[in-house]
């Protein structure tokens, strides 16, 4: 997650944009919800995004996409992995994981556009489901190519991922770039 936003930030910088990246971690890095913020443009000072003000939200998990939709507004596009990772509150019997169809329609109601991808499944064919971040980034790169040069992601990946995982990461990225996911609204 932190790596995803760092790769995105570097690709933006290499495209000649000003950029700031930050995250809310601490306790959350131990399996809790985690949110990273990236702001980019000609001149940017802060990375923080107010509630309802995100242009894009990339979510690595379906329920987390719903949680992060507090940052979505009428102009927001979501790129969502359909991966489901039940939180401890679910498997300890305190709460239920909402039906995926319900989550998808709740998400779609909060934003301009939402794309749902089986990113983990696609990443598995590239090597490991772990590379789903690269699939999602690839798809995001495809719908924002006017903003950030897609080739710069390759450079950023080269800089930031271990050499042995570069090839599968690039493959996963390419799969995402050409993907045609379920689209709503």
């Amino acid at each position, binding site marked *: 997650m932190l790596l995803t936003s*760092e790769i995105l*930030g*570097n690709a933006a*910088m290499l495209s000649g944009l*000003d*950029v*700031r*990246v*930050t*995250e*809310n*971690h*601490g*306790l*959350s*890095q*131990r*399996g*809790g*919800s985690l949110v990273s913020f990236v702001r980019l443009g000609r001149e*940017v*000072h*802060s*990375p*923080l*995004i*107010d*509630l*309802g003000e995100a242009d894009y939200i990339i979510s690595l998990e379906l*329920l*987390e996409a*719903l*949680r992060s*939709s*507090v940052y*979505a507004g009428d102009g927001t596009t979501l790129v969502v992995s359909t991966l*489901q990772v*039940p*939180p*401890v*509150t*679910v*498997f*300890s*019997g*305190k*709460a*239920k*994981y*909402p039906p995926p169809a319900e*989550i998808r329609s*709740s998400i779609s109601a*909060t934003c301009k556009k939402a794309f749902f991808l089986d990113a983990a499944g696609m990443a598995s064919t590239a090597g490991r489901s772990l590379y789903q971040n690269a699939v999602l980034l690839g798809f995001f790169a495809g719908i924002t190519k006017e903003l950030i040069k897609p080739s710069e992601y390759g450079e950023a990946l080269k*800089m*930031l991922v271990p050499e042995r995982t570069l090839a599968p990461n690039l493959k996963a990225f390419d799969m995402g770039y050409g993907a045609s996911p379920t689209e709503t609204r």
Partner: protein
Amino acid sequence: MVDTSVISNGARGQKFLLLGNEAVVRGGLEAGFTVFTSYPGTPASEVLDVATEVSKVVGIHAEYSVNEKVAIDTAAGAAMNGLRAITAMKHVGLNVASDTFMALPYFAPKSALVIVVADDPSAYSSQNEQDTRNYGYFANLPMLQPSDPQEVKECVLKAAEISESLELPVLIRLDIRVSHVRGPVVLGDLREPPSRKEFVKEKGRYTAIPPYPVRAHEILLGKLEKCKDVSCSSEFVKLIDRGSENGVICAGSASTYVLDAELPGPMQPDVLKMLMVNPLPEEAIVRFLSAHKRVLVVEELDPIFETRIKRLAYDNELKTVILGKEAGIPSVGELMPVDVRSAMATLVGVPQAKKVGRPIPAGPARPPVFCAGCPHRASMYLIKTLAGKNRVVVSDIGCYGMGALSPTDVGDVLLDMGFSIGAAGGFAIGAKLKPLAVIGDSTFLHAGIPALINAVWNKHDLAVIILDNLITAMTGLQPNPSSGLDSQFHEAERVSIEDLVKACGVKSLRVLDPLQVKASKREIREMLDERGVSVMILRQPCALLTSQQLKVSGRKATPYAVVAENCNNCNACLLLASCPALIPALTEEGGKLAKVTIDPAACTGCGFCAEVCPYGAIIQGVA
């Protein structure tokens, strides 16, 4: 993290996306600092994480010290002895270091000493959201407050100059939105450390005993007075003049929201952005106040600038309207851009409806959990099962502190580093049940030892469980004296916690493996029935450390698996272990979740789930 070779070797003019904390180290190398010390703490940890990496290839000394007090003492000693030194810590770490921090300005080193402190507004990973700026004024130290990683690097260079020209330590105050922000940083030249000025013995110059402190205090205030010119200079004050009758005064991360705020074009106020905040650039502020009808002070947490600026206006008989917290800038929690934008709208008189966010969507919460294979999972289970409902459990700072959250619920009291043992001593006075203190290895070594000595000496009746996972885990796996590794992960003398406990005078000591659940249960029961101070060390390495070591050696853990025909679907493993490697089925069978499976890639083979499975349905090595 960026490849640290960027920090150690990156050439002048190259641009990288660096974390504020990484920029501290790069700035240090560009200014010829050779000593870096710290006790890890979010959001400051990466400073030393990077410095220790860099120290493997560049001739600097980087150490995780045993606590923040020792970290500042070590840095101070090095700077007294002619080396430029940086010490870094989180805001509450400065409380631990404060004894030195408050006296050192009177008897300061001659070589540069820079104290980097990172605040945590909103207390994302801390016990409070204290504002370190108060400490800058309290100690009378020059204080810089950069707003982004590039400024952080520049500030370290400037701090080195100020520190040596005034012979005073310099405080650089960061916060999470500077420390943990990545932004483009253009590198400067790396420089060799300045030629070393060996320590020269001077009567009274470094000895804080009467009659020296009072004279030293006077000298200190004189130095700070001299610094006023520096803080007003153009390198420390940025003025944006748009010809408005309204102005904003700000510094640090708060200024980033001011600069990003877009109000209707002609309404944009002028901005005075400060980089040095002690002493405040008083002359520049008075000029700014005189030139504007209304001025808004934007600052996170305490109204420190606001109070001081209002006093300046009073002293100079200025009629400028000065707005601050009452304009809607919160004193609690971290600032958000919307807070600043709406206060600026109030300043310029544009009515702006504050946007109300959508309601937080319904859905199950995702609190943090212990990692797969974490030995604290077993320890928490043992404590929860055996402490009983009425016994007070005082926990401490570390990963196991998360045990106080549901569903674990272990820890009735938790305050600050090392509080557990001292407080349990207090709880023990007149108590019916022996209180239990729970503390990790790093926290015990940091602040637990004096409290344990006190408990023995004053005959407290309490039990202590030391969770020794051989590493400082919460802040990202930093070695500590119990690791048998130095700050660079090279082999080092392992400081034996059992020897320390015995040396404190404790007669009842047990050392166990929490994953040996049955044996540990028996021993904890016995311990809780004893009188006096009883200590148990539950030792098992952090699962992240173990998996790192396995990776290096090319070996793999042998995972467990659920034998479906033996599984009675009771979900005891899920409820008692709550391990991320246990995968609950999302479908229901007869009102219960379907059978659990184990993710072989995530399972570390710790076997705790097998211990708690009443049907023996979880077996190692069958997958």
